C-alpha cells in the first residue's frame, strides 16, 4: 500500500513542555485513521504538525516521498494538498458561504472565478449546504458552519483531509449531521485523518485507530482490536473512562 504520510521520530515541545515524543506512524492512501486519547495527549498538535501550523522540533514528515521539514520546502504548496477542518470552524467572517469556498481556489490555486464557483457548488452539495451560498458565517448554526468548513477544504481538492475534533464544539443535536457528511466522505475513498472524541464514529468508520497518551502513540490497530481487545492497560483505562461518561 502506498504511504501518503509517513512520520518518523517526530518531536515537538512548547517551551519545556514536551508535547510529542518520538512519534512514528503513517497513513496509507484511501485510509481513514482516527486518533483518540484524552485532552492534552498531543492529538491536535500531531495533526497541526502535518500541515505545519506547528513547527516540529525534530524528526521527519515524509509526504509523498518528500520530507516537508527540509529547508526550502514550499510549505504553502504543501498546505494546499491537505484540507483542514478546525474545531472552531474558522470560516472567513468577511466572506459568504460561496466565497469561503472559492477564495482559496482563486487566490492560491489560480483557478478562474467560474471554475472555482462550479467546484464550490459541487462540494457544497456534498455537504448539503448549496442553498446557503449567500449566507454569511454569522447567520449559520454550528453544524451548518462546520459543513461549510468541510466544503471549503474539499473545494481545494486535497489529497488528504485532516479533521481536528470537528464535532467537539457543536451542540449534541448537530453532531449527527456533521458525522454523517464525514462518513459519506470516508466511504467515497478519501484519505482522512480524524482527531475525535466520537468513539462511535471511530469504531464504525475508521480503518485504523491510534490511541495517544502523554505525547506518545500508546497503541494502534483496527477498531475491533482497540475497542474490543485493547492490549495496553492505558487504552483500557481510557476507554473505560470515556464509555462510562456516555
Amino acid at each position, binding site marked *: 500500500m502506498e504511504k501518503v504520510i509517513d512520520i518518523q521520530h517526530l518531536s515537538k515541545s512548547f517551551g519545556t513542555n514536551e508535547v510529542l515524543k518520538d512519534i512514528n506512524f503513517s497513513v496509507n492512501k484511501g485510509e481513514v485513521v482516527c486518533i483518540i486519547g484524552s485532552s492534552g495527549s498531543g492529538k491536535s498538535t500531531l495533526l497541526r504538525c502535518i*500541515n505545519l*501550523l506547528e513547527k516540529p522540533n525534530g524528526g521527519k514528515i515524509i509526504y509523498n516521498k518528500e520530507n516537508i521539514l527540509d529547508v526550502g520546502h514550499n510549505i*504553502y*504548496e504543501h*498546505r*494546499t494538498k*491537505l*484540507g*483542514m477542518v*478546525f474545531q*472552531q*470552524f*474558522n*470560516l*472567513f*467572517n*468577511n*466572506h*459568504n458561504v460561496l466565497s469561503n469556498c472559492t*477564495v*482559496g481556489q482563486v*487566490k*492560491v*490555486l489560480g483557478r478562474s472565478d467560474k471554475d472555482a464557483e462550479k467546484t464550490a457548488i459541487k462540494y457544497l452539495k456534498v455537504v448539503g449546504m*448549496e*442553498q*446557503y*451560498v*449567500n*449566507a*454569511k458565517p454569522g*447567520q449559520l448554526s454550528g453544524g451548518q458552519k462546520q459543513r461549510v*468548513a468541510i466544503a*471549503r*477544504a474539499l473545494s*481545494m481538492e486535497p489529497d488528504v483531509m485532516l479533521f481536528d475534533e470537528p464535532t467537539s464544539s457543536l451542540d449534541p443535536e448537530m453532531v449527527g449531521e456533521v458525522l454523517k457528511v464525514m462518513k459519506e466522505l470516508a466511504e467515497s475513498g478519501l484519505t482522512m485523518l480524524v482527531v475525535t472524541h466520537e468513539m462511535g464514529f471511530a469504531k464504525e468508520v475508521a480503518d485504523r485507530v491510534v490511541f495517544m497518551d502523554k505525547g506518545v502513540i500508546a497503541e494502534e490497530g483496527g477498531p475491533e482490536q482497540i475497542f474490543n481487545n485493547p492490549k495496553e492497560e492505558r487504552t483500557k483505562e481510557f476507554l473505560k473512562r470515556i464509555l462510562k461518561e456516555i
Partner: protein
Amino acid sequence: MEIKWLVRIWTRYWPMFIRGAGITLFISVIGTIIGFIIGLIVGVIRTIPISEKKGKRVLSKCINSLLTAYVEFFRGTPMIVQAMVIYYGSAVAFGIHLDRLAAAIFIVSINTGAYMAEVVRGGIISIDRGQFEAAQAIGMNHVQTMINVVLPQVIRNILPATGNEFVINIKDTSVLSVISVTELFFQTKSIAGNNFRYSEAFFITSIVYLIMTITITRILRVFERKLDGPANYDLLGNQMQVQKIENMLEEDSSLRKKA
C-alpha cells in the same frame, strides 16, 4: 455679537468662507485617505511573524524599529510644531520651498498615518487567530491572508476610529494657518481683520466646521452599513418551500376568518 453683523459678514464674504471650507475639506479628505493607507501598510508590516532565517530577522527588526520611531515621533509631538519644522526646516536646511498645500497634505497624512498604524495594529491583533490559521491551512501566505481575510475585517472594525480621525483632521487643519495655508481658519482671520468683527466671523466659522463634521460622520455611518451587507440571506432553490409556508399561513388565516 450682533445679528446684523453676522448677516453682513456672511452676505459679503461667503465665497471666502466656502473657499476656506473647501481647502479644509480637501486637505483632510486627502490626508485621511493617505494616512489610512500608511496606517494599513505600517500596521501590516508590524504584525508580520518573526522569520526563522537570521538575515530576514535582522532586516525585519531594523524596519520595525524605524516604524516605531516614526509612530512615536509623530504621535508624540504637536502637529503645529511638525508643520513649522517641516515647512520652514526644509527651506532653511535644504533650500526646498514646498508648496503650502502640498506641505499641508503631507503633514496631515503622516500624522494620521502614525495614529492609524496603532489603530490598525490593534485591529489586526483583535482578529481571531483561527482566521489566520484557516487562511494558512488553505495555502495562503502572509500577504494573501492579510488582503483576502484579515484586512477586510480589520477595516470594517476600525471604521469608527477612522471617522474619529477624520473629524479630528477637519478641526486640526486649522493649525496649518501657521504656514499660511488658506484653509477655513486662515480665511476667517483675514475676514475678521477686515472689519474687526472677530466674534461674528468665528461664530459663522464654527457653524461651517460643525456642518462639515456632522456630514462626514453621517456619510461614514452609511458606508459602514453598506459594508455590513444585508441582514438576511435568501435560500437558493428553495423558493417553492417558502411559497408554501406563506400559502399555508394565508389559508390558515382565511380559514380562521370563515370560522
